[in-house]
């Protein structure tokens, strides 16, 4: 028997060895010796317009290298086909857009020579035509010219029904793109699109990398194209030369990067799903940075100074709680939800009382160690924040008084009850959110806070895959099967990104519009008007005024409870020297300036 068993096991070992030899072979792009490119081409060199190389710059003996750790692997390098942040990150490292956001959150030119504006003639008087001027002498990493034709091709690829892009938002409003010469791109919109800066540009929430026409032209189903999994060329500071699925990828400098040669000679990205492992690997120096610790890990990472440094970047994402404001009747035949929301929430005093009854600052100070803030509106840490608004302070006495005024009085069981639509209703309701530990901890505190004002808050934690389920899958939010709920989102980099879909009557999910993204189920015509006003002008000053008014309206109506602005928590080794970055840019925006001690 032992012989049979050993034969069996030997066969398995043999099979594994054979499979190991057959599978997972890395694709290695050929590398050349480093050309003498250390800076962006000068004016005289530009006149020649020759590429500095045609292949990635080979890693020299004793070269400088760093290894980053990401907890997930990007689905592709082109975020047109992936919603993952990791896809945006890898694109920032390898592909360029016309513009990007810098460390201070300013929109700046990348492949473009300058950002179009009314002053430089880049934005037409009616706001319908945007003219981009590209830098001179741009080349892909393989030495092919990068021209206005690549921009036009990118638009055509996004709009091609044969390509399974995730979103055509904004791109579908382009009527035409003209390319009068190799460096001029004239984009004409069919209707006003104030968020034009999010198209063909790279930001924290948008995908706009320019695609290489000479590689992808004439092909369809680009989502399955080799280029998005094993890219051979790039336009960013780096070129992927090796990508072993589930394991790591290696990037070498792009000889033709418009910003000059990166300071480092190599960057590697290791995929490490467990933050605890990433923390251990930072301590041993196996990796140099990890960009995705949770806020709850701030003190753990901070305790590792001076070997490991902590960077906390307050973000424009926010954790918020909100009320089910759905009605089965809708308003003027629009925005009907499948279910009526919890009746008492229709009263603004109840919503305000719940907001005042949660000690949000204490949550930030204790669970989040004071590393972030309680924001007043849904545009935190952004130049678009309505700075005249301040978050309500914790005030349980005023909250109780508001509930008294609203007619909800304390019962013998310590829970308030009152009349709503002719029926006696207890202020006892479910709160739905996901199973993440920080959400469980916060919900427990909120439960305790609200109990003090006679409100029974009952948390229900559901795995994200179910909690965020769609209408057809009986998802919690689109079917209105909740009283209160909470999760994180953010409206950026353009201040109206996703706002219309989140708030307008037309986007309340129901059988006729099952993919509607208005999870609040709000249908408020006054709000619809404010949304329309915010999208009606491209003039930055007029837009700011309109968006300020929109924020004030949501704030005054207590439609959402802003819990805290999310923070991005990075840890990096002492030897790795990242360049300055902010939330909108994120760490990867200027990787050419990364260095080691």
């Amino acid at each position, binding site marked *: 028997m032992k012989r*049979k068993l050993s034969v069996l096991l030997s066969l398995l070992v043999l099979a594994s060895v054979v499979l190991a030899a057959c599978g997972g072979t890395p694709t290695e792009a050929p590398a050349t010796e480093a050309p003498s490119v250390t800076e962006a081409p000068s004016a005289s060199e530009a006149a020649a317009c020759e590429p500095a190389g045609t292949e990635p710059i080979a890693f020299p003996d004793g070269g400088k290298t760093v290894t980053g750790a990401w907890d997930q692997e990007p689905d592709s390098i082109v975020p047109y086909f992936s919603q993952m942040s990791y896809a945006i990150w890898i694109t920032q490292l390898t592909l360029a857009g016309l513009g990007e956001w810098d460390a201070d959150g300013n929109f700046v030119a990348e492949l473009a020579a300058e950002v179009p504006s009314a002053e430089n003639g880049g934005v037409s008087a009616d706001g319908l035509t945007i003219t981009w001027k590209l830098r001179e002498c741009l080349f892909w990493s393989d030495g092919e010219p990068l021209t206005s034709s690549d921009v036009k091709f990118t638009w055509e690829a996004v709009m091609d029904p044969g390509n399974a892009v995730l979103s055509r938002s904004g791109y579908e409003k382009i009527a035409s793109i003209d390319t009068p010469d190799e460096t001029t791109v004239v984009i004409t919109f069919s209707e006003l699109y104030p968020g034009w800066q999010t198209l063909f540009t790279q930001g924290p929430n948008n995908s706009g990398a320019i695609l290489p026409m000479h590689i992808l032209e004439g092909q369809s189903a680009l989502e399955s194209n080799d280029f998005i999994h094993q890219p051979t060329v790039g336009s960013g500071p780096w070129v992927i030369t090796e990508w072993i699925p589930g394991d790591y990828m290696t990037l070498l400098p792009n000889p033709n990067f418009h910003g000059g040669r990166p300071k480092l000679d190599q960057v590697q990205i290791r995929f490490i799903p467990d933050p605890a492992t990433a923390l251990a690997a930072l301590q041993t120096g196996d990796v140099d940075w990890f960009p995705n610790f949770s806020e709850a890990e701030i003190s753990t990472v901070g305790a590792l100074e001076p070997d490991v440094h902590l960077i906390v970047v307050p973000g424009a994402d926010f954790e918020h709680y909100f009320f089910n404001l759905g009605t089965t009747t809708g308003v003027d035949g629009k925005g009907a939800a499948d279910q009526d929301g919890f009746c008492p929430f229709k009263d603004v005093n109840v919503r305000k009382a719940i907001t005042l009854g949660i000690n949000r600052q204490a949550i930030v100070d204790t669970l989040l160690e004071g590393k972030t803030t309680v924001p007043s509106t849904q545009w935190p840490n952004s130049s678009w924040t309505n700075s005249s608004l301040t978050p309500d302070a914790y005030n349980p006495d005023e909250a109780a008084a508001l509930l008294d005024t609203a007619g909800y009085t304390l019962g013998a069981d310590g829970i308030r009850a009152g009349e709503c639509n002719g029926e006696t209703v207890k202020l006892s309701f479910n709160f739905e959110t996901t199973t993440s530990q920080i959400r469980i901890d916060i919900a427990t505190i909120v439960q305790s806070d609200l109990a003090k004002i006679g409100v029974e808050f009952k948390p229900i934690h559901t795995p994200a895959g179910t909690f965020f389920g769609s209408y057809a899958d009986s998802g919690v939010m689109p079917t209105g099967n909740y009283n209160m709920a909470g999760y994180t989102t953010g409206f950026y980099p353009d201040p109206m990104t996703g706002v219309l879909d989140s708030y307008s009557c037309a986007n309340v999910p129901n059988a006729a519009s099952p993919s509607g993204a208005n999870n609040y189920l709000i249908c408020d015509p006054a709000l619809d008007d404010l949304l329309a006003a915010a999208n009606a002008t491209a003039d930055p000053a007029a837009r700011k005024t309109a968006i300020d008014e929109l924020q004030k309206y949501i704030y005054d109506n207590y439609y959402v409870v802003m819990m805290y602005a999310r923070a991005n928590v990075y840890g990096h080794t002492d030897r790795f020297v990242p360049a300055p970055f902010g939330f909108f840019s994120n760490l990867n925006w200027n990787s050419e300036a990364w260095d080691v001690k």
Partner: protein
Amino acid sequence: MWSYLFRRMIQAIFTLLIITVLCFILTRLSADPMAQYATSARMTTEDREALRERLGLNDPLPVQYFKWLGLALQGELGNSFFSKQPVSLMISQRLPNTLILMVTAEIITVSLALVLGILSAVKQYSVVDNVITTLSFIGFSMPIFFIALGLMLIFSVQFKAWGLPYLPTGADIWDKKDPVELIQHLILPVSALVIILTAGYARYIRASMLEVLGLDYVRTARAKGLTSRAVLFKHALRNAALPLVTIIGLDIPFLLGGALVTEQVYAWPGMGRLFWEYAQRGDFPVVLGILLIISTAVVIFTIITDIVYTFVDPRIRLS
């Protein structure tokens, strides 16, 4: 024998069909692939609707299942919803890594368990038996993530902090073709798995050996004047190993599925991680592809186990 095998193959096909239906239902109910896009601010209502249609999620569930089954019957496992790559390619990239880890762990586990189990049985109620039993229970009852992280913190992080030679965390980038590096990187994950798995096997072997050692034929063998070694290994172990064959036979297919937690902790690019990462996102082509392969292996290895039984125990005949 051949008619038996034919019958078992027919049964296996039906079993696999039932398994795929159950797996499909469970996978579809456990996570909605569209949940990934629920808070994506850049996707409009129209974008979401178009995506649902493209992924085939607007079809009724039975239609979704039969579309998948139709492909599977042609040897196609479809494409991942998210990476858009063929599932068969994704599996082929991860399977060798998993086999290296799991087969190594299984070989060491079984070898160690045999030694400990036999020793425990022969020295029943001795100090050795008590120590082995206690350690077995400790290993058996500890959560794997605790052991895996604990080993890493001690032998990687702390050893480095103490200035001692230290083992890699597994989070570094290393040459998979270098046998020395391979062994270095296998030590911690394999140790974690062996600690967890050995206890169960050792207890089985101990119980089985104790039962056999008390039987008349063993006493007869001893009475014939055979050495203890001969009695133990030639007479007792052969019969005591019968339950072990069943356990190993049923465990081998699960080696293909990898060790979910161990692979997560040590960033081992194997099947367990692939399964977990895509199951969380509701990517049912990937999840079903992996489950189909494991289910097929379970069914096949069950049949193989039955056949091996006839060799190990001549009293058993397949009919």
